[in-house]
């Protein structure tokens, strides 16, 4: 007659279903998408994070002397979508499992990531290029570590030189 009675009694015996937070830790899954973290050691200033950020929570500002860029991410604009972390080619941006973001109103503008990323230098002519941090050279530049540290012009010269050398040795062989 009352099919719910059985369920209600069962629920009564089982007791509360809620976590006793803050008196005990709340369960946080390993995959939880919490606040973003930025590793300046891996950032190459490509700007893709800013491009895909729907709420505009990421800013990049060049320094006056041109020595690098200031990276800033304001957590209070962030919507925790994780698109920046998804598209980041070097893994510099990641979503942590940290969800404890409550803070006082007067601290709201401090609740941000701010990192200075210096530009890299061309190994040959010393011209300014995108940052070439160690962690990235080892991975992305693995095929040709020397050329990876050059500016586009020096890279072109180096490729051209290599090509001529190859052709020369090839011609010598056929002759």
């Amino acid at each position: 007659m009352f099919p719910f009675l059985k369920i209600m009694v069962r629920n009564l015996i089982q007791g509360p279903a809620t976590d006793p937070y803050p008196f005990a830790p709340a369960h946080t899954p390993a995959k939880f998408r919490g606040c973003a973290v930025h590793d300046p050691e891996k950032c190459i200033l490509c700007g893709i994070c800013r491009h895909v950020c729907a709420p505009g929570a990421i800013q990049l500002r060049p320094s006056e002397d041109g020595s690098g860029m200031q990276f800033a991410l304001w957590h209070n604009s962030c919507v925790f979508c994780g698109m920046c972390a998804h598209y980041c080619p070097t893994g510099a941006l990641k979503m942590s499992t940290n969800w404890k973001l409550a803070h006082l109103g007067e601290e709201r503008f401090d609740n941000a990531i701010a990192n200075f990323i210096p530009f890299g230098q061309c190994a040959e002519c010393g011209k300014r290029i995108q940052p070439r941090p160690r962690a990235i050279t080892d991975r992305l530049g693995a095929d040709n570590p020397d050329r990876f540290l050059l500016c586009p012009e020096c890279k072109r010269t180096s490729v051209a030189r290599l090509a001529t050398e190859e052709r020369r040795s090839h011609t010598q062989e056929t002759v």
Partner: protein
Amino acid sequence: MKKNIIHSVTQALSPFCDQDIVRWTYDVNDNAFAWIAPGSPDTLRTIAPALAGLQARLLTITAYRRDKFGRADGREIAYHFDIDGVVATVTVLLDDEFPRVPSIAHWFKNAGWNEREFAELYGIEIIDHPDPRRLFVDKDLDADILDRLIPLSTLMNGASTTTLWEKVFAGKQMPEWAKGELN
């Protein structure tokens, strides 16, 4: 099955438009989409009853500017119908000076809300609408306001404004130059 629908759509529309102005596209799952080339608003008076005769269901109506930023005149309206799983889109071009279009609510009851919405957002006049009131936007506001976007966040000094970023940058240990103009 799909072939039959494609055939009957083409048949039903043939009195008003040439075969070659119906373009067919297919997605990866072989769902068919018919695109009926732009006509004048008056063509709706004949196409709408023909589609109603095919037991079509109106999906939605999209009004848009030919130039997104309104740098040039011109509004168009795309009417999307479902005919047993096939989507047919009929596009009409509106007059630059007096953008107006006949209501199709007589054949498709659910066109009522759609027409009220694009009328207020794009400033288009609907001829013979059964209930020509505003839908979402208050009657005291001007029509054609979709393009004149004033984000709430701008009003409330929220996300992404220069002032906001000055405050974020001000609280941080960073060089003086970084606190300057927004880049």
